[in-house]
């Protein structure tokens, strides 16, 4: 009987492999693992939406913590800016986590479907917008400096429009708590476009923040009993390994084709989730 509660070996392999693929492509596309992991858990494995969200939140904490440890040592993270924006993301995530547990699985699935549609649109917009040139502002606040791996040069910058970035962070945190994604898809463009932070620093700072943001709703899902230890452990380990692999690969390939392929795939998944 005890064996009955354990996952079958096939489910274990599916979870580990699915997590690995979600983590790899999530890192390659700058999405984090959650956006791809949740549809996999719900559509392929038939896991209830609340449990899929809770599993994704665990995976987000794992990848954020591992990635942030590396980025902090490389001094790409603007820790002071991250701490300020975390006030907004944590507040949003707590509200999102509480709200999610009052919503039905069906409503959350529809909301997630809408999120995927939005994410696909942002991916295409970013791919078309990116021309490799960055404008750095030096008359703002919270100065940062990092060495760009590609050029070997030090990049000095400051941050502008912090209140605007906080507003976007509040929304990102809320979506994170409600739907189990990191929220980087909102924060990174906001930090880059609104606050003038170089893309690499914006991505690293966003990744640094999402662990705390996810932790802000994780205990609420835990208290509601939505964290299944087998599913969450296996998927988190898969996503963690996959995201490490994705980070390595992303240093070597930069393909807009991949972005377009996944944008179309996300639209397909969005429609499939909406029609469930």
């Amino acid at each position: 009987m005890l064996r009955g509660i354990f996952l079958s070996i096939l489910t274990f392999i599916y979870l580990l492999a699915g997590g690995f693929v979600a983590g790899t492509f999530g890192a390659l596309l700058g999405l984090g693992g959650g956006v791809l992991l949740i549809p996999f858990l719900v559509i392929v494995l038939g896991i209830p939406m609340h449990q899929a969200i809770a599993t994704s939140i665990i995976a987000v904490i794992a990848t954020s913590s591992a990635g942030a440890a590396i980025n902090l040592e490389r001094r790409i993270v603007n820790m002071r800016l991250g701490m300020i924006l975390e006030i907004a993301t944590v507040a949003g995530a707590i509200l999102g986590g509480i709200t999610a547990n009052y919503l039905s699985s069906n409503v959350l699935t529809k909301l997630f479907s809408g999120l995927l549609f939005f994410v696909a649109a942002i991916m295409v917009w970013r791919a078309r917008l990116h021309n490799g040139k960055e404008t750095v502002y030096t008359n703002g606040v919270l100065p940062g400096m990092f060495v760009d791996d590609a050029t070997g040069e030090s990049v000095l910058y400051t941050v502008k429009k912090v209140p605007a970035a906080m507003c976007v962070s509040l929304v990102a945190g809320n979506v994170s708590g409600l739907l189990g994604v990191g929220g980087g898809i909102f924060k990174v463009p906001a930090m880059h476009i609104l606050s003038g932070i170089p893309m690499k620093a914006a991505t690293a700072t966003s990744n640094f923040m999402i662990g705390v943001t996810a932790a802000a709703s994780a205990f609420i899902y835990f208290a509601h009993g939505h964290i299944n230890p087998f599913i969450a452990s296996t998927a988190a380990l898969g996503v963690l390994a996959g995201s490490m692999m994705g980070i390595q690969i992303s240093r070597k390939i930069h393909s807009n084709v991949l972005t377009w392929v996944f944008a179309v795939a996300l639209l397909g998944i969005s429609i499939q989730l909406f029609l469930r």
Partner: protein
Amino acid sequence: MPDLISISDNTQHDAERWTSRVLRLGVWVSASLMIFGLLLAALSPISIVPLSMNPSLGNLVERMFSFTFDPVTLMFTGLVVLMFTPILRVITAVFGFAAERDWRFVIVSSVVLFMLVGEIVYSVFMRR
């Protein structure tokens, strides 16, 4: 830009260094516990009464201190260690900024910490 020059000073990076170490340690400890739990689940015929599939934080602490290690306890403990890792990194940041005598960011980090503690307290009371 005097501020930009001053941030390159090594003494300004205590918070970053310690935070990085805490995150790395948290991920290693939690991943090890989860892997050990999964291996134990796959390999052993378990004789210990397993933990409930919806334990409280108190249940977990109780079982860890009584050295009752079944796969579910180990996996849940790994997951809870992982959930506490970002909180520990906020605590580290509070002390790191205090070491740098950056009191403004001690307050900012403390606000984040206060909200996270509030969330845990809410979760504990919500279960009852």
